[in-house]
């Protein structure tokens, strides 16, 4: 079992997938100290963008991880039009792709609430701190509540020290 978020993100960027980093990894980038086992993104569910997503992971044996038979990722135009989420298991780890985020809305709203961030392996957009708090609050699971508590601390700290990311 492996999970290499940096490698997955690099692949997505190389294939020019339109996406925003959400979920636990977004929390990590903001400073949350909880461990997360998957990479969650919100992406545009257009045929073109989903084809780019497929190309990004095609040699990583992508499977729909929640299907009983672990069906391989083999997109058709018809399937692209029907999917709202894609939950993948790949050789480089779990990649969950959502078309919308609870508490925020669809991809356009998520994009509006995102902020650019440059790392050594590329520029990415991540959900802004307030939006992440709203999303985690809306999700409402125990692990989300834990994350919200830390995110509120980080927000408070940021407001007191404007130089923090």
């Amino acid at each position, binding site marked *: *079992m*492996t*999970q*290499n*978020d*940096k490698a997955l993100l690099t692949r997505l960027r190389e294939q020019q997938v339109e996406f925003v980093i959400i979920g636990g*990894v977004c929390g*990590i*980038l*903001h*400073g*949350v*100290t909880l*461990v*997360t*086992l998957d990479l969650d993104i919100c992406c545009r569910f257009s045929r073109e963008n989903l084809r780019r997503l497929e190309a990004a992971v095609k040699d990583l044996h992508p499977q729909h991880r929640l299907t009983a038979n672990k069906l391989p990722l083999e997109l058709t135009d018809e399937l692209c039009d029907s999917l709202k989420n894609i939950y993948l298991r790949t050789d480089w780890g779990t990649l969950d792709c959502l078309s919308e985020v609870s508490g925020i809305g669809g991809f356009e709203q998520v994009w509006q609430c995102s902020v650019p*961030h440059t*790392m*050594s392996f590329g520029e990415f957009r991540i959900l802004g701190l307030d939006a992440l708090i709203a999303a985690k609050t809306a999700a409402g699971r125990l692990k989300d509540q834990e994350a919200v*508590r*830390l995110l*509120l*601390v*980080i*927000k*408070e*700290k940021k407001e*007191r020290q404007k130089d*923090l*990311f």
Partner: protein
Amino acid sequence: MIDAKTLAQMNGEYAMPADAGPAWRAAAAHGYDMSLLEETLRLTPEQRLEMHQRALNTVLMVMEAGECHDAK
């Protein structure tokens, strides 16, 4: 001679920063290790991602070891 306050901190008592706000104090009271959060916030986002990757690798290694143990 170590004073009582320092000794308490050596034993795990958290020294609340003077500028700690209500959210910070509430999280500390809830039992979070705020010193870890302080350290993390001193890092760049990319350094945070790398630190998380190392922690995640350890978690996955322990999970695999548990699965191997259960299979025996």
